[in-house]
């Protein structure tokens, strides 16, 4: 089975510092792949390169066989790769549902002149889009709060909203950068079951960067471990947990047992 | 069109480079202020202009020795920089557009105060060294040469200060990594004040030298500001070496292109160069990656 994403010799140098060095990793359709490693291992850098936010210094990225290595962010989104950011990146002063509507940009399909002249078909289109946004909100459990301002939501709900916005793309591949960081136990479990539902109900593949070990071990089908920009282990959660190199990399590092 | 001999070319290169150093001082001051306070100090050209007029007033009207007048002007402008930081820019910290517009308002006020006080006509400060010397068949005004030397000296002084002194190192750190330097306990207020004081002092030197070698008028700050900004973009923000290299490039352009291709080309050339540079290297020649 061909992988949905192939990371081939991916490298990123910042000045003289190798943040990611010759990373080779395949991501398979329908799996949840965990990307873990100590702080500074280069995990977010990998995500940023896949998402088109950072230019790789070397290597290749193949998404469904297509070379997307140097694609800018908006083209990556067009191809079907969605992402959430480490911090709560939302349109804070817009309502919850308008945030998701913003995420529906690519599927909006509203012609410029129709929009500018405020033609009736545009209003119908808008109504349909808002309906679709509402469906997405129902899926992530935020339908009650649809008219609240994003900025007023508690942290856990904001995270869920970030996910909703990314889902608006209907992306076959999702990049999740620390989806449960800063959440309490209840919020974590809600988010995790959401990600699981994405895989089971919608067939979405996810790459998840996380520090919360229990979340990673419990949720991911496979895990890749980075240390100092290099992959030091890859395999099932059990395999990785028992890997001596992995244990050594984490030795002495305080872990937040959420 | 007279024949352009190599002598004429060399002459204009030298002239351009000498004048360019004065603008380097502007660029360095602006760059320092911009990278530390994140404010585009639009009134910086006016500080330069005031620096020149203070020297004019002291040396021509009060009869004080030129170099003493320059020293006084530098100190006064440094103090002005501190006052501006404390009462003008610090209350607006965190905003981007507001301090810029406040500085624009200040720019208008200062230009018109000087116009009211001294008149709109250009003035000049009698040169402190009116002779010219001939080196290899090129005429160099001694005062201009000395002006260049003084500018280079101040640039070196700044360089040494930034590399050696405790405050200088702190400034360098603050300009490259604002958050990190705050975490290290470096007071942002003090850094901003220092940047404003040093930047304004450098502008005063530039203004004084320009007034002495050329002319002064109330709008001289506008040209200096633009040239300083061009140098910053050419060389990259926050980089001293970049400021120097940018200044040299600008000086060369002003000299060579002006003579060979005329004033239109000389005006357009820096912009064209910058546009091309930005496509290739968005951070400028030496600047940091944003």
């Amino acid at each position, binding site marked *: 089975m061909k992988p949905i994403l192939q990371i081939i010799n991916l490298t990123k140098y910042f000045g003289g510092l190798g943040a990611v060095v010759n990373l080779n990793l395949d991501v398979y359709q329908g799996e949840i792949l965990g990307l873990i490693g100590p702080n500074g291992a280069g995990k977010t850098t990998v995500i940023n390169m896949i998402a088109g936010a950072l230019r790789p210094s070397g290597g290749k990225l193949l998404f469904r066989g297509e070379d997307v290595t140097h694609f800018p962010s*908006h083209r990556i989104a067009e191809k079907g790769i969605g992402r959430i950011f480490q911090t709560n990146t939302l349109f804070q002063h817009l309502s919850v549902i308008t945030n998701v509507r913003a995420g529906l940009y690519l599927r909006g399909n509203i012609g410029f002149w129709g929009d500018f002249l405020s033609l009736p078909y545009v209003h119908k289109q808008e109504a349909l889009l808002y309906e679709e946004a509402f469906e997405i909100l129902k899926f992530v459990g935020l339908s009650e709060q649809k008219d609240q301002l994003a900025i007023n939501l508690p942290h856990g709900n904001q995270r869920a909203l970030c996910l909703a916005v990314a889902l608006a793309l209907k992306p076959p591949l999702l990049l999740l950068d620390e989806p449960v960081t800063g959440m309490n136990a209840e919020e974590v479990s809600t988010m995790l079951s959401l990600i699981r539902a994405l895989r089971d109900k919608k067939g979405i593949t996810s790459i998840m960067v996380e520090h919360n070990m229990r979340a990673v071990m419990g949720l991911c089908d496979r895990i890749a471990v980075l240390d100092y920009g290099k992959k030091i282990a890859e395999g099932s959660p059990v395999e990785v947990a028992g890997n001596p190199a992995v244990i050594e990399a984490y030795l002495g590092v305080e872990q937040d047992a959420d | 069109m007279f024949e352009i001999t190599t002598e004429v070319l060399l002459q204009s290169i030298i002239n351009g480079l000498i004048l360019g150093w004065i603008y380097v001082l502007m660029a360095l001051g602006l760059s320092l202020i911009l990278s530390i306070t994140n404010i585009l100090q639009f009134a910086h050209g006016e500080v330069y202009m005031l620096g020149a007029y203070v020297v004019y007033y002291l040396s021509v009207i009060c009869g004080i020795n030129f170099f003493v007048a320059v020293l006084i002007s530098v100190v006064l402008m440094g103090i002005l920089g501190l006052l501006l930081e404390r009462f003008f820019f610090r209350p607006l910290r965190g905003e981007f557009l507001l301090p810029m517009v406040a500085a624009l308002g200040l720019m208008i006020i200062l230009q018109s105060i000087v116009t009211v006080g001294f008149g709109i006509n250009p003035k000049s400060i009698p040169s402190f060294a009116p002779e010219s010397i001939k080196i290899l068949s090129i005429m160099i005004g001694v005062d201009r040469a000395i002006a260049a030397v003084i500018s280079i000296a101040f640039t070196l002084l700044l360089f040494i200060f930034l590399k050696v002194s405790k405050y200088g190192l702190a400034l360098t750190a603050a300009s490259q990594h604002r958050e990190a330097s705050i975490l290290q306990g470096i007071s942002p207020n003090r850094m901003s004040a220092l940047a404003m004081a040093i930047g304004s002092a450098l502008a005063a030197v530039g203004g004084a030298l320009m007034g002495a070698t050329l002319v002064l008028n109330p709008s001289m700050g506008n040209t200096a500001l633009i040239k300083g900004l061009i140098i910053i973009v050419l060389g990259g923000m926050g980089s001293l070496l970049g400021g120097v290299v940018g200044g040299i490039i600008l000086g060369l352009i002003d000299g060579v292109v002006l003579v060979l291709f005329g*004033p239109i080309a000389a005006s357009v050339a820096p912009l064209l160069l*910058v546009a091309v540079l930005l496509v290739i290297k968005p951070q400028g020649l030496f600047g940091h990656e944003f």
Partner: protein
Amino acid sequence: MSSKISMIKHSSIPAFIIFLFLIPIFLKNTYWLHVLGIAGINVILVSSLHTIRSTGEISMGTGGFMAIGAYTSALLAMKLGLSFWLTMLLSGVLCAAVAVILGYPLMRTKGIYFSILTLVTAEVFRLIAWYYSSLTGGAVGLSGIPSPNSIPIPGIGTIIFETKVDYYYLILVITLLSLLVLFRLQNSQVGFVWRNIREMDHLAASVGINVLRYKIFAFAIGSFFTGIAGALFAHFMHLLAADTTGKFGMTTSIYILIYMVFGGEGKYMGPVLGAFILTVLPETFRAMKEYQPIIFGALVILIVFFMPQGIISFPDRILSWRRRKETSDRMPLQSS
């Protein structure tokens, strides 16, 4: 309470527009009609700047594009004998084209670089106009720029542009049309995307928005209308000489930016109000001559410090002050 306010707002705008059309009936003073004409041109300029600003960018290139617009329209009319209506449009299109060409390299950079670079371009265009004297007349400039061509209306008569009143209506109509287009854009999906880019450009990119293209579009539209304003200026003044064109660079860019912030960039009408007030008000203390800029600068600084959201925020501030007063009156015993 708020529906009453929106009712006032909705009925007052058409009423206000009608009022604007009626002004020349009781205002006959040609000097003030001239000032109002300039105010209209400034309103177009500031709204163009505001459009660019809605993507988060601060353009300091207004003066340069105004120069391009003014000289292009004047020269096309004088050298090629084209009609004003055509030359005005062509000026706008040329400015938009220049904006697109400049936008690609310039808008990739960090915001402040864009501001610095557009400032440099404004000065470069001014200097080109200054030095290219064979084309633009240099310091002497262009004089005798023709009036807009008359518009024959079959059955009624011909609209000719001769008196200050004619020009007042010309500028009024073009200003209203420009505002209509620009405001409509702001309210459309394009405006929505622009605001999203301004707030979180990496989030916008991650949902598929081509940020650079949208920014360049805003820059191009803004520059188009700036060019229109420049053309209007040239055919209104009939003269482009050193004392006016000397301002076609940094100076104009600075003043238009000041108008925008003074009026308040939070609402569409803010910059319009700022441009209007700051064009008309200085004329009232024109008698102060050289002290006028000092007062102007002081006014700007006062607003920046004491009403940073601009003049347009004044009613809201009164309302919230009154609301605060009401609640504190109603609850005298409050634990802090």
